[in-house]
């Protein structure tokens, strides 16, 4: 078997002289055919349920489409820049983008820091470790609707436990409406985000920590490095690539997040993120064109941020 990859079009032409039926396929070509045959269904379904919708959103962003006129508009009707224009000039656009950015960065940093601390403390075996590790994953696997409700009830000014205890033990003068007042809503949502997604960072960091060879730390200990020095000079450099990767993954996912904010605050009190706004355009205003334009803007901004990030941390991430 040759080791160089055959060019796509070259090998068939080279073999053309022989009658195609008689000559047995090389192992390599059989492998290539099997690969294409196996990947085809996956690829087709992916293109059908994800690829086409993405392209279609871009098309819709440049068309005048409303839910009421939906049945009449064709796929390639008139194209217009109205939607983009409207989206960029509707009041609150810049603020939404800013809120989304703060929310994404806050949620990303919070979840990674919490995840790192969690991974460091359960790294070495202790009694009940499996149970502790499993419990730490609960926020991540539990249904979003249920956990947002519990948070809402816990933070409720009248019957929430946080305010009850805050007033009784910490001497708060009045109950704090965490999720409905401008000064605390965004911060609360960010804390929720960090709480819900730190298990994701925790899992990745723990897996990486356990792959750090024991001799490295042992050698540092023999050389007289204290625990914090060992963390700073041995563990942290080993973890940095994973942290950089988590940074980009969590940022993308938080930037796109809809459920958490929608369920916690409905986008009120200065927490309207872009995807909640897209949803509002889509359902409340039934303006499909504007919703699509808003979504396209979301995707473009996201791609720009990721590219900037990769420029700075690219070597680490790959």
């Amino acid at each position, binding site marked *: 078997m040759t080791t160089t990859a055959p060019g796509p079009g070259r090998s068939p032409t080279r073999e053309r002289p022989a009658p195609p039926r008689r000559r047995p396929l090389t192992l390599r070509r059989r492998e290539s055919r*099997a690969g294409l045959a196996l990947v085809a269904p996956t690829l087709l379904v992916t293109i059908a349920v994800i690829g086409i919708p993405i392209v*279609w959103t871009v098309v819709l962003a440049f068309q005048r489409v409303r839910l009421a006129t939906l049945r009449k508009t064709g796929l390639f009707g008139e194209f217009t820049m109205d939607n983009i224009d409207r989206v960029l000039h509707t009041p609150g656009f810049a603020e939404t983008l800013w809120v989304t950015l703060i929310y994404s960065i806050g949620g990303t940093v919070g979840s990674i820091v919490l995840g790192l601390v969690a991974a460091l403390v359960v790294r070495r075996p202790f009694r009940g470790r499996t149970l502790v590790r499993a419990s730490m994953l609960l926020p991540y*696997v539990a249904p979003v609707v249920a956990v947002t409700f519990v948070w809402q009830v816990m933070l409720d000014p009248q019957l929430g436990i946080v305010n009850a205890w805050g007033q009784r033990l910490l001497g708060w003068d009045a109950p704090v409406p965490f999720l409905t007042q401008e000064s605390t809503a965004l911060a609360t949502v960010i804390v929720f985000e960090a709480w819900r997604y730190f298990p994701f960072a925790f899992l990745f960091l723990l897996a990486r920590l356990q792959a750090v060879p024991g001799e490295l730390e042992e050698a540092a200990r023999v050389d007289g490095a204290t*625990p914090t020095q060992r963390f700073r000079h041995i563990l942290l450099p080993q973890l940095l690539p994973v942290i950089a990767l988590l940074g980009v993954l969590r940022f993308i996912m938080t930037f796109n997040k809809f459920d958490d904010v929608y369920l916690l605050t409905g986008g009120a009190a200065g927490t309207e993120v872009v995807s909640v706004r897209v949803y509002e355009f889509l359902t409340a205003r039934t303006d499909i064109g504007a919703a699509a334009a808003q979504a396209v803007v979301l*995707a473009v901004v996201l791609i720009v941020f990721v590219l900037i990030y990769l420029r700075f941390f690219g070597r680490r991430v790959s």
Partner: protein
Amino acid sequence: MDRDVVETVSLRWLRRLVIAVFLVITVFPFYYMLVLSVRPIERLLLDPGALVVGFGELTVATYAEVLKATDDGGQGFLTFIRNSGLVAVAATVLTLLVAIPGAYAVARLRFFGRRQVDFLFLAVYLFPSIVIAIPLFVVFTRAGLRGSLFGLVLVYISQTLPVSVYMLKNYFETIPVSLEESAAIDGAGRLGIIRRVSLPLAMPSIMAVALYDFMIAWNEFLFALLFLVDKPNRWTVSLGLSLLADGVEVPKTVLMAGSVVLTLPIVILFFASERLLTEGLTSGAEKG
């Protein structure tokens, strides 16, 4: 005392403390959910800070209200559970059927365009689902599929497929090629190798992916909201619960009972398969 001893001792205590704090912040909300779901609302209003349920005030009326059919004055969650279960199982099975061959091909077989396909799967995984939601909303409205559970299954495949391919691919890559080669020398064809060697070896990982897909589909909210909101008898548990909160005069304790009903299947599944899941989720993560 030298610095090493000070640090070692204080970190030992700090570590215990931090573990305790983490346990509290992760488990407490779920405990609180459970406690509230079995307390009468009047008692809650009187004493919102209580953490234990007195024997006298224990009630399961909240669960009865949540689970009973709407005709009997309840909230009809039994129907929602059936809907959610059907959709999640169907989406999981279909996703696996499509994802396994593709993941295997990308992991193992050299074919034209393999790297591009690999990149595509990762890119769609990271794409905003709200971007996909708009055209699906349009198509489903036009095709009359809005309000159909089958349509929802199709949409859920778009949510579970990329991550499934990604996880399975990472696992297939860890199976030693030599095992497959020896099967090939023994005369097995490609499909025979997959069926007799690769699939049995990948079974734990496939189970982990299946559980993960099931959880995604069971927990999903946005698409259920977009597509099913007009058809109350098709609601999933997540959707039913979120809309229950909009209804007037539904006590918070009933909401918490609904949350427990929504969360319990996932928590049971999770604890039953914790090892499988944590290892499956990060398989391949060591490569960084």
